[in-house]
């Protein structure tokens, strides 16, 4: 298992780390038993994600995918942010080891969870827009979602 240089770059100096106190949406995915938790904060103006930050407990890939995913949605329209796939995150990182693919899925899901929260706070049912968020199973930590 070797990480790409890009992954190590984002791991060593992750972008967008931290909290947004007055966030418009907060999403959290993963669970500590599995060793990965991502929490993402978004600030939205005119349907645009003007700011995004994350807090992550997890492996190198978890931190790097959090960093990359936040980079990729920052400044994007929500509808475009929702098009972010784990594949895109992986590609932007020049790939991930097979056992770490689930981290990119978590990152995708964390963004979606934050957007869902944003809609929910505004009284809008997120499901038709964001889709069902499958939660990582407690049982199998190597969830493939």
């Amino acid at each position: 298992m070797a990480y790409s240089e890009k992954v190590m770059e984002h791991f060593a100096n992750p972008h967008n780390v931290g909290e947004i106190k007055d966030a418009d949406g907060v999403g959290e995915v993963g669970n500590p038993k599995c060793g990965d938790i991502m929490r993402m904060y978004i600030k939205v103006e005119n349907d645009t994600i003007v700011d995004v930050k994350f807090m992550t407990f997890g492996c190198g890939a978890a931190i790097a995918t959090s960093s990359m995913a936040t980079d990729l949605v920052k400044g994007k329209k929500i509808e475009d942010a929702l098009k972010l796939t784990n594949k895109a995150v992986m590609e932007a990182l020049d790939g991930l080891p097979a056992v770490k693919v689930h981290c990119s899925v978590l990152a995708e899901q964390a963004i979606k969870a934050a957007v869902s929260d944003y809609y929910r706070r505004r009284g809008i049912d997120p499901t038709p827009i964001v889709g069902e968020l499958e939660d990582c199973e407690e049982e199998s930590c190597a969830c493939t979602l």
Partner: protein
Amino acid sequence: MDQNGKRLVYADNAATTAVSPAVLDAMLPFYKELYGNPSSLYSVGNAAKKPLEEARAKVARCLGADTNEIYFTSGGSESDNWAIKGVAHKLKAQGKTHIITSKFEHHAVLHTCAALEKEGFTVTYLDVHENGIVVPEELEAAITDKTALVTIMYANNEIGTIQPIPEIGAICKKHGVLFHTDAVQAVGNVPIDVKAQNIDMLSLSGHKLHAPKGVGALYIRRGISIPNLIDGGAQERTRRAGTENVAGIVGLGVAMENAMATMEEKNAKLRRMQDKLIDGILKIDRSRLNGDRIKRLPGNASFCFEGIEGESLLLMLDLKGVCASSGSACTSGSLDPSHVLLAIGLKHEVAHGSLRLSFSDMNDESDIDYILEVLPPIVERLRSMSPLWDAIIHGRTV
């Protein structure tokens, strides 16, 4: 150790060690002019036979065994498999289908036991309690008239705790049950005497003590006959086939001899370093030492840090030139927390935050100083990124 001007601290000697220059020097002739097959008649081959047998004598001496009780293998895993499967298959015919081991053996033992369970054997996995040590009385209580074998590791690879081997040996002898110990982590680090300690079989591996990877040995007490794991040519007195890895075996002999000669001095130094390391690391908030503080290998210390995930800790340390591991090297890449840490009662979420630092005589105190300098800020940084930390310090369950 410095490399390219960057400080490098290799603190993963429980995973593998560097081949020492003395060992390499002893090996090189066998990759050059002394390439003959030791089973050959002519002089080029014969020249390889003598060093092979000398290496066997050295290994035997270091264990208190006789020379012809030592069989060379490809490493610790092969030795474990051979000993355990061998005894199991041998004694099955006598209705002995029960094996006793512990919950925190190396996978070479645990997975071998699991394979035997599929064949119909029953296995008792003894508790190792919070201090990471098997209780001899519990072992004795587990013995039945069906027990074929007790296999308990000499020292644990992940947390370094040393097991009460002489006591276990005495119990096994009393009950007439064979006793195997995986001493891969212990050999070269603690004094071993297979006769005095009533050990019937013992596995060791070269690369844990500055010999190369891919060579090891199994001690089998004279009189114990088990089926071969590898059948074929007449090497190793017909008990382990395959053209002998002469260079590796010679290297193993030299490494064992060196380890024995320097053990006392080395251990005194490693103990001092270990005390400083443990005291220093335990100053970090919500950190813990895994396993008994005293009954441990002088070169091995394992810690857990709440709110930290082990891999990112290792990667951050690597960026600072510190090579360490979270536990067993064989399972990295796996996402499950260590079975060893779960066996000593840690919760999954705590077990994820483990760090094993293991040292050899090639390390010195400045390595400890360096680790104590770089580790605390890394822990702090990762915790500051963690969505759990806040809850942990405020006592909320996560």
